[in-house]
């Protein structure tokens, strides 16, 4: 039997409908305002260079005794955790009584080219942790690291275990040399010294291009064909454009930090192999003695689950919990399922410790 049974008339109807949607899109897009992001009120707590530390304000006073600091990746903007009112990890955590802080790394420029991982981890993160701990008069705080921020958090928790009460790693790469890690596969043939010596900072456009090429047809074409389906729906289009804005709102990467991250993490896989130094401090995951919650996404094409799972066997604590989320790297923050499952899981896990 012929597997394709597309009746010509039906195909014509499809084409007409497609174009009608496009025509409707003219009106929708032209009448749309600039999309905004960030659903939750926040106050600035600390500022250093381009970094700003925020504390989110919930409708009620937090009930949690220990504050939670979110360390996001450098490669995208952190407002993904508070994208919009009905898609906000932060808002849901606040509703559950958590006291949430967030590090906004800002947009590095050429003057930040020489920022190293030492500056980011032993400098910025350490000082933010200290600021939060001091505000709350506690010796230890909870740390939630996301993606590259998760890798930073692992390093930090290893170097300063006395400052972290509970560690949560979300979509965090640990083993960078798993066979399905396309990004890592590609970077291993790169001369990263030549790359950084030439570019200085890594331009955001180049980073975005690299991410798109992980799934070129799906991310560059199919997604926009799908967008036609919602062109006549203003709310859906706003959601789409908000996400689109986040995806392409990428800061440049500080050159030296990028160089070290690629060399030590992507190429050297030192979180697994050992020998990782951040400044003059050595990192060993065995030194992570506090409780750890590892959340990863089963359909993550940027950080495959196989890259996150090995954390269990590498850390020093026996209090390890793992949560496999049914979704992708971005869906873990913004999908409806994520709103239902992720904040509750984090809160419950913290409450038990």
């Amino acid at each position: 039997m012929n597997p394709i049974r597309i009746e010509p008339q039906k195909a014509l109807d499809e084409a007409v409908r497609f174009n009608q949607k496009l025509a409707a899109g003219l009106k929708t897009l032209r009448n749309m305002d600039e999309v905004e992001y960030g659903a939750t009120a926040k106050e600035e707590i600390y500022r250093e260079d381009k970094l700003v530390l925020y504390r989110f304000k919930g409708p009620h006073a937090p009930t949690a005794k220990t504050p939670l600091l979110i360390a996001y990746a450098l490669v995208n903007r952190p407002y993904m955790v508070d994208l919009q009112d009905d898609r906000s990890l932060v808002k849901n955590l606040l509703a559950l009584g958590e006291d949430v802080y967030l590090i906004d790394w800002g947009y590095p420029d050429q003057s930040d080219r020489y920022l190293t991982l030492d500056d980011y981890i032993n400098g910025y993160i350490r000082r933010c942790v200290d600021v939060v701990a001091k505000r709350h008069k506690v010796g230890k705080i909870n740390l939630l690291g996301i993606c590259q921020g998760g890798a930073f958090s692992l390093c930090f928790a290893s170097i300063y275990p006395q400052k972290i009460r509970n560690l949560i790693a979300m979509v965090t790469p640990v083993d960078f040399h798993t066979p399905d890690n396309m990004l890592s596969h590609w970077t291993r043939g790169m001369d990263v010294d030549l790359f950084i010596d030439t570019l200085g900072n890594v331009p955001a456009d180049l980073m975005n291009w690299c991410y798109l090429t992980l799934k070129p047809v799906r991310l560059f074409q199919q997604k926009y064909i799908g967008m036609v389906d919602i062109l006549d729906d203003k709310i859906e289009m706003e959601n789409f454009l908000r996400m689109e804005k986040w995806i392409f709102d990428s800061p440049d990467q500080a050159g030296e930090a990028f160089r070290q991250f690629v060399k030590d993490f992507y190429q050297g896989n030192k979180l697994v192999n050992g020998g990782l130094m951040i400044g003059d401090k050595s990192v060993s995951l065995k030194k992570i003695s506090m409780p750890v919650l590892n959340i990863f996404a089963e359909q993550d094409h940027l950080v495959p689950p196989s890259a996150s799972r090995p954390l269990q066997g590498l850390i020093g604590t026996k209090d390890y919990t793992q949560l496999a989320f049914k979704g992708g790297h971005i869906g873990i923050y913004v999908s409806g399922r994520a709103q239902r499952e992720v904040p509750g899981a984090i809160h419950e896990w913290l409450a038990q410790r």
Partner: protein
Amino acid sequence: MSDTNGGHDWSKDWQALQSQYWSAWTDLTRNQAGVTPDAATPWHEGLEQWSRMFGSAGKQSDAAERLMSSAKDYLNLMQSMMTFASGKGGGPINAQSWLETLRGAFNMPGVDPGLMNNPLAKMLRDMSGNGVRSFEQLASGAKPMIEQMQQEGLSWLRAPAFGYAREHQEHYQKMLLAFADFQEAVKQYNALMMKASQRSFEIAEGKIAERSEPGRQIDSVRALYDLWVDAAEEAYAEVALSEEFRKVYGDVVNAQMRVRSQMQQEVERIGVDLGMPTRTELNNVHKRLHDLRRELRASQEAQRDAGHDGRDAEIAAMRAEIDDLRRLVSNSPTAPVLRTAAPPKAGVRRKRAPVRRKRAAKRAHVATKSTPIVKPVPVAIKPVVVRVQRTAAAPKARRRDARRRLAGRAAQASRVIPAAAKSAATARPEPKAASFREAIAAMRQQVSRQKNGKKKVKAARFSLPSRTSAPNARLRRSKS
């Protein structure tokens, strides 16, 4: 609505629909722009016009541009199916024939042959953002020169330079060679993309064949498109995760960086000639500034830590505790030792031994108090004790010299030592209250014993019980 009769003339319907479509578009957009459509590709012209309308929209133009590019390819697919169907007499489309036709890249109106031959390569080319595009433009500008050189052979680029402009010539040679290498690397990369494209058709064939069962057949262009996307991604992933791709990808990136680097050097050279600041100079300034800031921050933190790292607070807390203990002990009726630390009461005569103990305790206390940074140096204390024991039977002068030597050496090593040396000189097993913590622990023990009514405060003056007291006590107990 649907008419699937084999005799129906689909070509006429198709033409009619295109005209209808174009009329609708021109009606809709006639106030926006007056562009004459290309009769062969009316769908494209509609999209182009749509794009033009958003050209100046700014905020949404990125999304519109991406949509344009994708929608155009999707409409190409639709149109290809229609054209194919119209040529086949209007019946349902045969998957195999359609794929063969696509693979052969027949002359389809409006379809970029590159898309049909190598859709992935085309897609990757279209994906280039502004940052990448600028380089592509630059590279394409040099392409004619490179091609000419390639025709002549690149060997002359490797020939040694000489004469007054030797360095410049060398630089240009390097730059042109880098361009040539980059082009070669891109060629290798495109070859792999071609491989992925071809493989995508193979996978698509397999996926389409799986849908032959009734109920699983593909009945819309969109479903067919989605299936092709799955196949293309699968094929791409196969290639992209191969060792060959890793090398080729690395070569492309590295070759591009070498070209950029050579060009930057050339721009810098021109900048210097024109008296303009260069990237290298700015980098040096940034580097120095960064290093200075790091040093400053480290210095500030060290200063702050010296005062606020908790040592001051700890010392204050310990002092307070000592005061409490002193008060507690001084109020106790059986507190001969610690009472010595309290201010002497007027008119009260004391025995000599408690006074000596008091002085020794005070010396140890002052020593530890006055040297908060220097940790107790057991290594330094130990030789002192040993020396004193060794010289116990020596002549007086020798003992005096030894004491002087030790005192001098200890004073150099640490401020803890002189006190320790002096107390050791009493030839008494003095307690080693080398820190506040130990002093407090000793005091706690002391108070505890007093509370328990123990009389042996002499032996347990500051620290642990003597080595003989415990076995003797056991012996006594066993005898009794």
